[in-house]
């Protein structure tokens, strides 16, 4: 069984629920120690970034890009305003981890953002939180107030000459704003339509200025990495897969929850922590990294460890760490139709393949699900998905395509059955 749970982003979890999120609680676990050290010692940002690189922290938002490397792209000493932006838009189906960081450990995110700002030369940060998160928003804003009052945010902090201002910006219900450049557009008061890259945000991001965007969990991990050292963090996980990571285990399990466990933890262990498959059913399939990644049959998953490289070997991606468990007896056509509906609904609409293709996929799947499928539909789905993936501005196109292709790869027979007989092979959801 995993021994070291909740060592990084969830390190306040053992505290009383009522006070867990307060400044005092955070200080009691050593919080703001790193930020104060930075302010007192003014270390060379390059050394901090080196520490991060050593830790092998990979972006927790989905793409898994090494955070230290990302920060090193910033022209930190170039003149002009630079920004650090936190992505708390958490909209990927299956993912509910950032919400808990905001609710239970908001100060650690603030500290992480402040340190990030220092490292990349940004004196202003924005935390983009999805608008539905009323409670987490209130918690975060409360924490911001405490941090300002304690002199941890603002101007000339602790007499260091360092400035850092941090604001929340609220979304209003659009999954696509989790895509980093759509998020920037949204902060700029526009529709959340992803920008074409290049230029990358590190060259021209928010308001045209160099900007770094990181996921909530990535940023909240930083204080602990600096406190315990990059090597410690790396050792918690696997080479190239540093540290513990939050996994949102949901779907057909008895005790769905968020678990902060080392990368490399075997899937079966995680499943056990979540109480095993619901109602004692057999495991059918797992979507291991949020709804956008390919589905993996249960038997393969049971032999896979939860880290970026192992899951890639299993034919999928770790993504945001949202582990969606599907029990035997579930109709996979229904599941895929649900996913397809989601992407069609959430496409921003600018790229032709995504705007037109996601709706097409969704309609065909809906038709199949309701017994009006045609044998030619399956090749059509596969082919249309192939014409979306890799041909759009942002990865939503790929996210819409990959589930379709993987479901057809592993569960084609269920689709064929439904088309042939007009009713699903498996009756349950």
């Amino acid at each position: 069984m995993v021994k070291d749970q909740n060592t990084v982003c969830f390190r306040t979890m053992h505290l009383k629920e009522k006070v867990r999120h307060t400044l005092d609680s955070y200080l009691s676990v050593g919080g703001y120690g790193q930020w104060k050290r930075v302010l007192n010692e003014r270390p060379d940002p390059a050394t901090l970034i080196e520490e991060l690189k050593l830790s092998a922290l990979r972006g927790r938002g989905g793409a898994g890009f090494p955070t230290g490397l990302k920060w090193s792209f910033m022209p930190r000493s170039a003149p002009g305003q630079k920004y650090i932006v936190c992505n708390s838009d958490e909209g990927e189906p299956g993912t509910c981890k950032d919400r808990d960081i905001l609710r239970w450990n908001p100060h650690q995110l603030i500290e992480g953002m402040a340190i990030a700002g220092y490292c990349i030369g940004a004196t202003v940060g924005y935390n983009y939180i999805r608008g539905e998160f009323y409670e987490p928003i209130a918690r975060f804003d409360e924490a911001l107030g405490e941090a300002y009052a304690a002199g941890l945010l603002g101007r000339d902090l602790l007499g260091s000459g360092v400035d850092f201002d941090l604001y929340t910006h609220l979304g209003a219900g659009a999954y696509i704003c989790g895509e980093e450049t759509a998020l920037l557009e949204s902060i700029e008061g526009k529709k959340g339509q992803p920008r074409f890259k290049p230029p990358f945000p590190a060259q021209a991001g928010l308001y045209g200025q160099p900007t770094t965007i990181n996921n909530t969990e990535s940023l909240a991990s930083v204080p602990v990495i600096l406190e315990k050292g990059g090597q410690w963090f790396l050792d918690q996980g696997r080479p190239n897969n540093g540290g513990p990571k939050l996994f949102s285990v949901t779907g057909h399990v008895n005790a769905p929850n968020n678990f902060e466990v080392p990368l490399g933890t075997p899937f079966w262990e995680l499943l056990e922590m979540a109480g095993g498959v619901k109602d004692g059913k057999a495991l059918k399939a797992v979507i291991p990294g949020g709804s956008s990644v390919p589905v993996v049959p249960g038997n393969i998953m049971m032999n896979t460890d939860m880290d970026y490289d192992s899951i890639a070997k299993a034919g999928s991606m770790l993504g945001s760490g949202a582990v969606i468990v599907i029990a035997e007896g579930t109709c996979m056509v229904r599941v895929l139709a649900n996913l397809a509906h989601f992407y069609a609904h959430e496409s921003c609409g600018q790229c032709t393949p995504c705007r037109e293709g996601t709706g097409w996929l969704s309609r065909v799947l809906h038709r199949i699900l309701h017994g009006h499928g045609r044998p030619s539909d399956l090749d059509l789905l596969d082919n249309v998905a192939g014409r979306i993936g890799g041909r759009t501005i942002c990865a939503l196109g790929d996210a819409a395509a990959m589930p379709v292709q993987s479901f057809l790869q592993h569960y084609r027979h269920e689709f064929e059955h439904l088309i042939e007989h007009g009713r699903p092979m498996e009756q349950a959801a």
Partner: protein
Amino acid sequence: MSFRNAPLAVIHDVDKDTLFTPEIRAEIDRHVAKYPPEWKQSAVMPALTLVQDHNGGWLSRELMDQVAAYLDMPEVSVYEVATFYGMYDLEPVGRHKVCVCNSISCMLGGSEELMQHIEHKYNVAPGETTADGKFTFKEFECLGACRHAPAVMVDKTYHECVTPESFDKLIKKLD
């Protein structure tokens, strides 16, 4: 010059002090202050949210135009924003908004049954308002509360692991 990174400010010929209420203006101004001065339009989302909250949960064309005027934006840019994000309603709504998550984890946790229950029991389809005007029923994509599925957002509060029975209790408590 790219259209993307240049705010297209339009100066509106209105006295800003006649728009909204002093309280709303102060609140919008608090948001405006977060952004660079030439980027007042960054406050368009919070402004729309505020104005919607003060208008019984929906945005009329006039209110959107006022937001445009207040933030010196072209009206159509405000319409673009208001029609893009799912939390803005451009038609009158019921006294409450009941948003049921329909995405994968909630679906696996029973949100389809929950929605059927709501449709039948309250005689309201997604997007509609109950006959008594009590609530507007909205289908929402992933609410980010997947581990306690199915999740329902009633106005500004999340309710988790909602069953048809607990849903009915919830509705009963609403005015």
